């Protein structure tokens, strides 16, 4: 189990680092069985390698693969961002929030802006991803490994949707405003299942992206769409911050109200968590995008 986790942790390293040291690190892990601490050490090492990329290793990745790596980063960030954004939508969709939006101009304007930018960003995701998906599907007919990669995300999403429906049924059978430990465990399990589903989608998409040969213009076009999505993430994070400030200033009773199917968190805390995820995802996506364009410019 620890060896499997250690091998998994290796996948979190930047592409250039893995190309330079990956095989050696695998050999080391085979030679001396890793302990649990080694997995943490590898994850910490992966984070450092992302924060301080090596100039020497960068030459091991051409600009096409650098764009692929950046697009995978953008996708992972977008998935995390979309989960937080969906949480924001669910948190603020009820009638009292709509009424507060009509009364307080900044609340209404930022909420509308978030929705418009989210629709534009989703359009950019589709515009960037559809040609790549079409290319992957075309090739998947001939390659069984690619076929498996392409079929994984829909399966994971279907499973998660089923689990969500089950969770809704369980929560609707509970008395209103009733919190219990079973509800908390169910909510936590649902969250972990969502994370697993997102991870499967991102890893499978990344695998397919690297497995399909593609013309350069097609990669640049998809990467440009990813850049628009990144800009949208930054804009939404700013608008959500303004919305949060306006909510605390103008409708603090709503910020203090309970949120979620089991009322585990207040609306204010939920919004703070969602905003934190958004800011982290937008920052990481912006870093990945900048590195991708730098590689394209140097090519």
């Amino acid at each position, binding site marked *: 189990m620890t060896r499997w986790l*250690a091998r998994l*942790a290796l996948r979190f390293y930047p592409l250039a*680092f893995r190309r*330079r*040291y990956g*095989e*050696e*690190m*695998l*050999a*080391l*892990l085979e*030679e*001396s069985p*890793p302990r649990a*601490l*080694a997995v*943490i*050490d*590898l*994850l*910490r*090492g*992966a984070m*450092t*390698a992302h924060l301080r990329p*090596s*100039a*020497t*290793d960068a030459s091991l990745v051409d600009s096409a693969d650098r764009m692929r790596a950046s697009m995978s980063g953008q996708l992972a960030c977008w998935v995390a961002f979309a989960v937080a954004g969906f949480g924001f939508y669910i948190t603020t969709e009820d009638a009292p929030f709509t009424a507060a939006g009509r009364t307080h101009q900044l609340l209404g304007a930022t909420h509308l802006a978030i929705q418009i930018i989210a629709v534009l960003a989703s359009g950019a995701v589709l515009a960037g991803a559809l040609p790549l998906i079409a290319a992957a599907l075309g090739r998947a007919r001939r390659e069984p490994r690619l076929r498996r990669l392409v079929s994984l995300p829909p399966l994971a999403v279907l499973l998660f949707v089923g689990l969500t429906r089950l969770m809704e049924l369980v929560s609707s059978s509970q008395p209103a405003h009733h919190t219990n430990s079973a509800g908390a465990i169910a909510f936590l399990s649902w969250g972990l299942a969502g994370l697993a589903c997102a991870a499967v989608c991102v890893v499978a998409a990344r695998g397919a992206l690297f497995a399909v040969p593609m013309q350069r213009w097609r990669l640049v076009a998809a990467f440009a769409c990813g850049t628009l999505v990144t800009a949208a993430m930054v804009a939404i994070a700013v608008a959500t911050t303004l919305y949060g400030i306006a909510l605390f200033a103008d409708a603090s009773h709503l910020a203090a109200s309970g949120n979620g199917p089991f009322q585990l968190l207040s609306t204010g805390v939920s919004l703070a968590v969602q905003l934190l995820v958004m800011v982290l995802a937008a920052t990481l996506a912006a870093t990945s995008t900048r590195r991708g364009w730098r590689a394209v410019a140097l090519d």
Partner: protein
Amino acid sequence: MLTSLAEGPRHGYAITLDVEQLSGVRLGPGTLYGALSRLEDRGLIESLPVEDRRHPYRLTGAGSAALADELRTLQRVARSGLDRLRVAEATG
């Protein structure tokens, strides 16, 4: 790690064992390869052709000079520390 390589080229696992023997600290794989990457970037070590999936590493000229500087500093600090302790013990 530079001290470990002072004796001759070594690959990652051999460096880990040697550092553990020298200092009692076992380097994790992430720490080891992060440090190797930084040392290579700074031109203090270089890798040799791959042997059985692993690159042996060796000190460069700059690495030897940096290690010698560092060891001389440590020697000076250790000597001063021991002298001061001796004086303190003699007077106290």
